[in-house]
């Protein structure tokens, strides 16, 4: 099977090796076509975003206004901070030039003159790799104004590597833009969406690192070829980061639709000690976990996982064997989202802390069956009521872990004690019509 994003070629991160293997030929080919044709090909290729939402990349590009006086921007989201996801850094380390070439093609297609590669603050090492690669590309004239001489065609764009300051929320695309602008990275209220009102109010497209790295292959080999790989509704190869209780954890590039069990047992070498699997989170810690007995026949692509009751997310597969304490796992995951909630909007700011307190109570053995119900209720109250998707990211693991492994939780709590303490806010039930005179 051919690998698109992480080819098995030694020293592929060196510019000479990259060039010797056809590097920048895709960009040259793109230059012979109209930008709209490029967008059209990417649309037809079926390339879907690899950052979590699996949204059509070509469709996203087509939202960029065609006629505008404003500068347009491309942001490459490399803030990879989701627990269980560690694929983008492989690209920074082993295939930086294909990412750069993908950026050039994307910028050409959407008419952007400036690209920011936003890299997670904790990725010091990979920031260095990427800075080095961009510097080399500038020296060779593959990026920046010299592009016009090297490639011809009159188009050029600049690439800046931007290091985050260390916050999960910066991976949310509108937070990422605020972060680049030097603001506190609070997610923006949408609409307006980035294509209308992005960086400094200008049209902006934000794509994941892996998404962009796929683009040169689509241009080079044609959309038909790409669309034929893997599952038709979510074609191409996907980087699966496998972690947890497996013998060979790591990043595997496989066609979409590969069986989850194949990934775990064949590629990742199975579970140590041949233990049974209790739980798998298939797409990074915020995605709904699957029970060990639900894994048979589950294919790894967006549509199949949706049918199976989860989501592809970032393709970060976390495997937990039969001895895993899922209450502890959930408490740890919830602690992460509590720690990373930006605090802007009420449900996530207050709800993540509440869920963590409840989980810690259950962990201490002081929980009751009511607390388990309350936990799910709090998660439901967060879901759908927040500014950004971090609300869901925090709520889903709780909601689905508890409902799918209810026995685990109920085994840890006492029958609902008479702990009938209610925190009286006031003694009055609703007596006033909610619509009352205006009160600024």
């Amino acid at each position, binding site marked *: 099977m051919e690998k698109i994003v992480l080819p098995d070629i030694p020293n592929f991160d060196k510019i000479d090796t990259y060039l010797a293997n056809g590097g920048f030929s895709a960009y040259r080919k793109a230059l012979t076509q109209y930008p709209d044709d490029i967008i059209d090909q990417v649309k037809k290729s079926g390339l879907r975003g690899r950052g979590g939402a699996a949204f059509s990349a070509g469709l996203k590009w087509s939202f960029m206004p065609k006629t505008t006086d404003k500068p347009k921007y491309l942001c490459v989201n490399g803030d990879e901070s989701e627990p269980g996801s560690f694929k983008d850094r492989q690209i920074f380390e082993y295939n930086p030039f294909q990412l750069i070439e993908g950026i050039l093609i994307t910028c050409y297609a959407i008419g952007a003159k400036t690209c920011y590669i936003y890299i997670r603050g904790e990725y010091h090492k990979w920031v260095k790799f990427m800075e080095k690669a961009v510097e080399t590309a500038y020296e060779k004239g593959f990026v920046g104004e010299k592009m016009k001489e090297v490639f011809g065609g009159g188009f050029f764009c600049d690439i800046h590597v931007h290091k985050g300051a260390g*916050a999960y*929320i910066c991976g949310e695309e509108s937070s990422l833009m605020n972060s680049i602008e030097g603001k*506190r990275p*609070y997610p923006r*209220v949408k609409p307006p969406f980035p294509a209308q009102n992005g960086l400094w109010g200008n049209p902006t497209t934000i794509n994941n690192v892996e998404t962009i790295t796929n683009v040169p292959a689509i241009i080079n080999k044609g959309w038909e070829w790409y669309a034929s790989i893997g599952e038709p509704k979510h074609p191409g190869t996907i980087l699966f980061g496998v972690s947890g209780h497996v013998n060979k954890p790591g990043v595997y590039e496989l066609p979409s639709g590969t069986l989850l069990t194949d990934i775990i047992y064949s590629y990742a070498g199975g579970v140590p000690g041949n233990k049974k699997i209790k739980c798998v989170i298939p797409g990074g810690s915020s995605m709904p976990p699957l029970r060990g007995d639900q894994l048979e026949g589950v294919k790894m692509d967006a549509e199949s996982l949706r049918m199976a009751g989860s989501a592809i997310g970032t393709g970060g597969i976390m495997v937990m064997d039969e001895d895993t304490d899922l209450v502890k796992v959930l408490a740890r995951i919830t602690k992460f989202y*509590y*720690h*990373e*909630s*930006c*605090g*802007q*909007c*009420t*449900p*996530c*700011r*207050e*709800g*993540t*802390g*509440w869920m963590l*307190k*409840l989980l810690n*109570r259950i962990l201490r053995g002081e929980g009751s069956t009511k607390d388990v119900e*309350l936990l799910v*209720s709090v998660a439901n*109250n967060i879901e*759908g*009521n*927040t*500014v950004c998707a971090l609300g869901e990211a925090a709520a889903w693991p709780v909601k689905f872990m508890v409902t799918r492994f209810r026995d685990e939780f109920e085994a840890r709590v006492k029958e609902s004690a008479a*702990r009938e*303490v*209610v*925190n*009286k*806010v*006031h*003694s*009055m*039930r*609703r*007596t*006033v019509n*909610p*619509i*009352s*005179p*205006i*009160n*600024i």
Partner: protein
Amino acid sequence: MSSFILDGKQIEFKQGQTIIQAAADHGIDIPHFCWHPSLSISGNCRVCLVEVERMPKLVIACSTLAAEGMVVHTNSEKTLAARNAVMEFILINHPLDCPICDEAGECKLQDYAYQHSVGESRFTEEKMHKDKRVELGPHVMFDGERCISCSRCIRFCDEIAGEPQLTFVQRGDRVTIVTYPGKELDNPYSLNVTDICPVGALTNRDFRFKARVWDMSSTKSVCSGCARGCNTDIWVRSNEILRLTPRHNEEVNSYWMCDEGRLNTFKHVNSESRVSGPQIKRDGKLNKSNWDEAYAAAFGELKSYTKDEIAFIGSAASTCEDNYILAKFAKTVIGAKHIDFPRHIKAGDQDNILIREDKTPNALGAELAGIRPAADGLTFHAIMKAVDEGRIKALYVVEEDLVGLNPAYKETLRKLELLIVHASNYNETTELANIIFPAATYAEKNGTWVNFQGRIQRIRPAVTTIEGDRSLDNLAMSRLDKFGTEFDRWGNVKKMDARPVWKIISGLANTQSGKFRYSTSEDVFNELVKSVPDFSGLDYDVIGEKGAALKKFVNTKTV
């Protein structure tokens, strides 16, 4: 005009309006904390989540644009569930210390907790602890635990005051508000954050713990601090002013007022230095007199000078009515020609927000009402020079502390044979006076001021005087309505024996002629309207609560 359906009611909206704005224009309040009509939209509190048909998720009414044919539900099951959820979330870490919180009684969170939450919480964990009693600046105190992180104060500083002095720090439920280390919240408008704070997180250090808000009455008035004339409410308990707050008037001050006006324009009303009862100097000592005696004495003294020897000083702090009567008296009864008022221009102390260089509320009104020299009369500075040179021997000064204005006038005023002063408080000018008439302050009388835009606005009595207690011209509401609580001891507090200028001068004039017959300031105003064309078409009802532009200024852009 386009329209949409809000809870079954057809609501018209202008293009580009959000659901909450369109609803507000129709007097419908969709619950909200972070949205404020004069600030940018932040969308963080999530209380305004509403259900819109054919939209997959609930949307926030503050940022969702109204669209033709949209069907919005603010009371549907889904909306109520979300609102209850958000209310519960907001309250879990809130200290619920309403009994000791200054905001109680005017707290959005308290109101909404009663109106929109289920009344009890399922939260039994320990609440978050944050810094309390943080002095954010000279005037503002911050309580981190009460804060609901709505960001109104931050946006106010950024967008209205133009000084980004506040910010969030930390994440999640640890988020709190700080100033930059070593810096303070000290912009000239800082106290507005205490008004827009929907909870008791930001409080006015000058007012903290002075009163429960429901024990005070509020009276619609205008700030006397400068020529802007910001609309205010005067808050009074036991006949004492405890605070001023801005009152919305988009034409003048929007929702705001400056700290200087808010803090430093009412304390003299409550001060120990008030003049109570007319004072006549005999043998170098002031003696309290009764009004009739003082009127007769003042009138008799004035009559012993020729009209060239007398000058009248009006005031841009007095009302149009006061100045009109003063001018009428000076010109028709005394026949004086030297009449003017001093300007209080503080050069450079002006911004493009609210603050004006002219530190008086009624310079335009004083002039229009007739406080200007006759063709052969002297202007203010010429009058003071003539006093210095002994040409003017008698000076009648209304509500101006001339020595306070210029210390050199102390020597000048000593040269006078007669100095009659209207003053609310003792000052260095009253020390030199032969007769002092106690003046009712702007908070004790009815009247009008004309601001720098040419907008005429009404002031109303918020505090009562002995005289005001029995007059037709006093508090707008009945006693029980106004001072309805048992903690408001209005009946047995000290009241000043002071009167508005127009009433004193009428009394003075009537000792001889009896032609100054007015029972209320409104009577004076109606005569003013008839005799001064600039005021034509106006009456107290037309001016109303938000003022009216004088005709010749209607089209003047001055905001």
